[in-house]
């Protein structure tokens, strides 16, 4: 079937191709620019074009792209870098050069790449969807291959085979491939959600100790420009104790992506000792790449994340920044002349966001295992004003809120997590888990929070009477609180301190508190503050 272009406004194109469904892929114009049907109007469809469409003319032909927009799922996703439409960027670079010219559309996975398949059952076995056929080795993990149809296995591969070849043949003649295609906008099914109960260790002291998250949970990191969202997301991507990380650069800087790729290629995964990139999938749709592809990039990415979750793994999904996705949605909505809601965002922003965030969780997989998908999402509020619609819509569904504070960032207190405003719904039960592994965790955590809170109150007093006017006990408290802030809460991502294991986190905190107690005891025994301090500095080994 073919039709033609009727009108063009930015990336929004009206066509007259009948028989399409919303969400279908179409190829627009002589250059066959990929697009997605976003609305139908009688025999006409409105299409969002995923590529720069300058030069596209009315009257140019349009073709049906064969069903909804899909992602390809299978071994070989790990270590890869895709754009928002899941085009492999290294391959695109090989074909088109350093700049994203239009046209090339390589298959997301390398079909010729050979995999070693280890059968998990014998020919003759009966299989149903979700049954294990065998595994292939992908980087640090055994990648299970599941049946997606029922039947009797007539033939099963063993040993090396290319991705393109079938891995099994059923008695009826049906073939089971190593890979599959999945509609990006449809969540992958599971046997049901479970209650999250295992902490996600991020290696960030402030988060693990104060606002821990469970695997399967969702946290948002809102903060004004330069407050450290990207650095925090990337640090977590490096050190979190998960099996697979999916990192989406959604409408952000190209240089940041280049930096991340350089670093991940050279760093080791502390858990497996293998290159960090081997457990990572990167989706890069930078701010200057087409807006419609930016909108779809988070769906492309989350489908890949769900795929690895369904293999029974712990997956962490990081997006930087969800605000850029919401803005893409707003641009598309404006082009469709929809009635705008708050700040011009479409009124369905909240529901769309909620549906997306609900794709996180701990699930019982189709194969009967357990997999988790956690999300940590950066949000970029205009003017660092957290009352704006995207932050607020996220807050309604995210369980944890890590608010980055411009004032802290200007003081170079990084990560600039505001410890009074941030929260995690998992904080208390997760602290109990940590306490089980690291006795004293809960108690030290309580003391840290109390000291920080007291400091806030005392600071107000000090602003009136001056530090000289404070009581000696209070001056000690101010001193300890400052140490807690500078030596415990601050964590420079560009030094060896970038990762702090829970045991080291606890130890560092305890050391500061022990010193606090020692000086406190000296004050009790009648020494003045300066005497007590002088003794501490001279005698006590740091």
């Amino acid at each position: 079937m073919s039709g033609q272009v009727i009108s063009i406004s930015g990336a929004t194109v009206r066509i007259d191709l009948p028989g399409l469904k919303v969400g279908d892929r179409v190829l627009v114009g002589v250059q066959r620019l990929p697009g997605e049907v976003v609305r139908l109007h009688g025999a006409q469809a409105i299409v969002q074009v995923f590529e720069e469409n300058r030069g596209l003319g009315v009257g140019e032909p349009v073709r049906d792209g064969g069903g909804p927009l899909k992602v390809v799922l299978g071994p070989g996703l790990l270590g890869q870098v895709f754009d928002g439409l899941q085009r492999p960027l290294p391959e695109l670079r090989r074909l088109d050069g350093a700049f994203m010219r239009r046209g090339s559309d390589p298959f997301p996975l390398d079909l010729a790449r050979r995999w070693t398949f280890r059968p998990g059952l014998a020919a003759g076995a009966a299989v149903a969807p979700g049954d294990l056929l065998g595994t292939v080795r992908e980087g640090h993990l055994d990648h299970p291959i599941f049946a997606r149809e029922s039947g009797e296995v007539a033939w099963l591969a063993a040993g090396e085979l290319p991705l393109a070849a079938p891995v099994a043949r059923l008695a009826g003649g049906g073939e089971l491939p190593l890979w599959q295609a999945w509609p990006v906008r449809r969540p992958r099914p599971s046997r049901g959600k479970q209650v999250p109960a295992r902490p996600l260790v991020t290696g960030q002291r402030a988060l693990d100790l104060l606002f821990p998250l469970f695997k399967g949970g969702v946290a948002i990191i809102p903060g004004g420009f330069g407050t450290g969202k990207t650095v925090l997301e990337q640090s977590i991507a490096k050190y979190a104790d998960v099996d697979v990380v999916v990192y989406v650069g959604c409408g952000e800087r190209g240089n940041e992506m280049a930096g991340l790729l350089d670093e991940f290629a050279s760093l080791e995964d502390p858990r497996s000792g293998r290159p960090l990139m081997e457990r990572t999938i990167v989706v890069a749709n930078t701010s200057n790449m087409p807006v419609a592809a930016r909108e779809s990039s988070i769906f492309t990415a989350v489908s890949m994340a769900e795929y690895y979750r369904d293999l029974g793994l712990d997956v962490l999904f990081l997006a930087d920044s969800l605000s850029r996705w919401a803005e893409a949605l707003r641009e598309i909505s404006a082009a469709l002349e929809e009635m705008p809601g708050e700040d011009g965002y479409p009124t369905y922003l909240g529901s769309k966001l909620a549906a997306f965030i609900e794709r996180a969780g701990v699930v019982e997989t189709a194969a009967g295992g357990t997999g988790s998908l956690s999300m940590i999402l950066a949000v970029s509020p205009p003017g660092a004003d957290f009352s704006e619609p995207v932050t607020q819509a996220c807050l309604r569904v995210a369980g944890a809120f890590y608010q980055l504070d411009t004032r802290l960032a200007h003081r170079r207190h990084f990560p600039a997590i505001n410890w009074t405003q941030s929260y995690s719904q998992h904080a208390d039960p997760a602290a109990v888990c940590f306490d089980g592994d690291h006795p004293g965790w809960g108690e030290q955590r309580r003391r840290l929070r109390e000291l920080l809170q007291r400091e806030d109150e005392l600071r107000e007093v000090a602003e009136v009477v001056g530090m000289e006017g404070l009581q000696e006990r209070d001056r000690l408290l101010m001193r300890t609180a400052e140490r807690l802030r500078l030596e415990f809460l601050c964590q420079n991502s560009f030094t060896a301190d970038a990762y702090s294991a829970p045991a080291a986190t606890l130890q560092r905190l305890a050391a500061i508190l022990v010193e606090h107690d020692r000086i406190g005891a000296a004050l009790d025994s009648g020494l003045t503050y300066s005497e007590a301090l002088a003794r501490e500095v001279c005698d006590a080994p740091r």
Partner: protein
Amino acid sequence: MRLAEYRYRTVTAVRGPLLFLARVFAARIGEVVTIIAPDGRRIDGEVLKIDGDLVVVQVFGDTVGLDTDRTEVRFTDVVKLAPLGLGCLGRIFDGSFRPRDGLPMFTPERWQPVSGAPFNPVARAHPEEFIETGVSAIDGLNTLVKGQKLPVFTCAGLPARELTEQLLRQARLPAGGPFVLVFVALGLTHFEYQHYARTLAELTGEYVAFVNLADEPVIERLLAPRLGLTVAEELAFAGGLDVLVIIADMANYCDALREVATAREELPGRRGYPGHMYSDLASLYERAGRLRDRRGSVTLLPVVTMPEDDITHPIPDLTGYITEGQLVLSRQLHQLGIFPPIDVLPSLSRLMNHGIGEAHTRADHRDLAGRLYRAYAKGRELRRLEAVVGRDGLLEDDRRMLDFATRFEQAFVHQGAARRTIAETLDLGARLLAEFGQGPPC
């Protein structure tokens, strides 16, 4: 591809910078048109929107004098292209790439679309080569690297131009070589431009300038930066040169964007600026960078005036969300006679970490910068406290930090027109710290 030029006299309306036409056959989005006014004046335009045979054209020039009867519009079947070639070096053009230095147009070697194409993110090389600007507050604490985009946030009345001129004159590459400069003036007054023009004329290195002054067509302000960047990309990635692009003032670009959006009856966003301003600015700023397999680089230093001195205004706010840091000028420092009045606290070069240290500047750079910053920040914080409790209410140590902050502003940030090498900057910083007992921990 259509073979002939198509001419129409079917203008139905003129609204602000937009022209509406009917009964147009097979127009293309982004297609360049030539508009011939009844008095014979020729103006370029670009197709913004097509609905069947109705077309909206954005006019790069004054629409005064256009009418619906006699105005003729010629469709050229091509998108906006920039003429390229080494002949552009040393030349000054207007916002539509016409010579404004009185010399004839150079002979282009080739043409490229002005909108450029995005870098493939995996083809980018991460910026990490130090650029010595000769300004201590930048080189020491907010180091610029090749391929970075670092705006100067200024307020009306502050000497952003003087700082920019200093950078134009002084910026050096690590190997000592000069930059090729691309200078884009957007909506500048004649007075400001005269100063810039003098600086350009005195430059020893190569430059290309695109100049749109305050009384010239507003819409050309949307085009001029794209022309500048297309030329910069060509010089950098085809010519292997290191190019420094300075655009002043991007606030005027944003206002032009708002003007077109309003004429298109787009839904206004914050302060009336269009919702797509982030993407639009990114399409310019992201053209800075380096490539893995090629020499050459594009470094971008836009000047942005913050309306009402407000850093949360959409213009600086969106800019900060796109660029790799910012240099913030301060009214207080300016009033104290400090030049350049760079407030190092809100300023930041995000790529600094990769461009300093043993391999680039000096082994002690990172440590020195950190200690200078912390000491100054502490002093600044204490100034607030001092205002409440008085100097005597402060501890002895704190009084010293107060004095450090003042000394830092007067000796380190302030440098007038002098050029300091990176070694001079770092030595100065170390000396100041030592003076106040903030030497390296033993």
